[in-house]
């Protein structure tokens, strides 16, 4: 547009947005949904340990991520839905990381990790993250599931040998 542009006096801006997305409020709301996804550093935790959590936000429309939440609430719940512990984490570039120090007197058993944002609470419950985890009795080590293995004939031995390097071929790990 030239700097000296002057619109005609009878010009009327056409604000008639008749697209389907604007017409349907449910699909508009749907684009604003977000969901937390967390992972724990371990499948089970002992009382007094720190549960390290990492996570990210899933977005129905990733282009709107900038408009959406920057705070995640994480709760640890007992089987009877009683909240044992809560924490607040910051979302940085769509990711969350932090730790929850479990109290030493925490009873071993099944617990639930729940995570949500305040904005989530406007939407159905399946937008909240819920996952079970176990608090083990101190000192109890569960038996490992045997990994799948293959035996090669004629005494062939398979050794793991690999290197990791970045895009400039600098080795990042031995």
């Amino acid at each position, binding site marked *: 547009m030239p700097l000296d542009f002057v619109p005609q006096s009878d010009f009327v801006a056409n604000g008639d947005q008749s697209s389907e997305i604007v017409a349907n409020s*449910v*699909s508009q*709301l*749907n684009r604003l*949904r977000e*969901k937390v*996804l*967390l*992972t*724990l*550093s*371990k*499948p*089970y935790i002992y009382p007094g340990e720190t549960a390290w959590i*990492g996570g990210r936000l*899933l977005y*129905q429309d990733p282009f709107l991520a900038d*408009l*959406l*939440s*920057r*705070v995640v609430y994480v709760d640890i719940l007992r089987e009877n839905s009683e909240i044992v512990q809560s924490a*607040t984490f*910051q979302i940085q570039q769509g990711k969350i990381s932090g730790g929850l120090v479990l109290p030493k007197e925490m009873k071993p058993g099944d617990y639930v990790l729940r995570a949500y*944002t*305040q*904005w*989530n*609470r*406007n*939407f*159905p419950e*399946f*937008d909240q993250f819920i*996952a*079970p*985890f176990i608090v083990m009795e101190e000192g109890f*080590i*569960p*038996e*490992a*599931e045997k990994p799948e293995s293959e035996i090669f004939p004629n005494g062939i031995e398979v050794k793991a040998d690999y290197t990791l390097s970045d*895009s400039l071929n600098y080795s990042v790990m031995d």
Partner: protein
Amino acid sequence: MNLFDEFENPIDGEFVLSISDPEQVVEMNQGIWLEQAMDWVDEVLSETFQSNLSYSVEYGISLRGKFIPDNKRQELIQPITIVRGDLEDYGQVMTDSSGYCWATGLNYQDTAQIVVAAGMRSFGLLGQ
């Protein structure tokens, strides 16, 4: 690392590597898979869904409060100034016609000192 789809077109993606010491942690099925979690993206809201969006988006730690005037002459609509620490962050919000205010966007780790003050410059500070 480059990621491609089935037609060998480059796509935006992330590679996440998580390592734990098998001697310290026994591997168990946690039942949380990123692949399954992505199914949520296909779960659309039902056509009958309605919400008056009573919970706001939070851009940081939020503060909620109510301005209670000292005397009847003071209006309920007042500017509220929120200051974190030694002026590390500050902002101003207006209370609504009932005196309530809500502000979001404060960011801090661990603990922080927050000062909340109500008032207009012309009348001086009304409360802190």
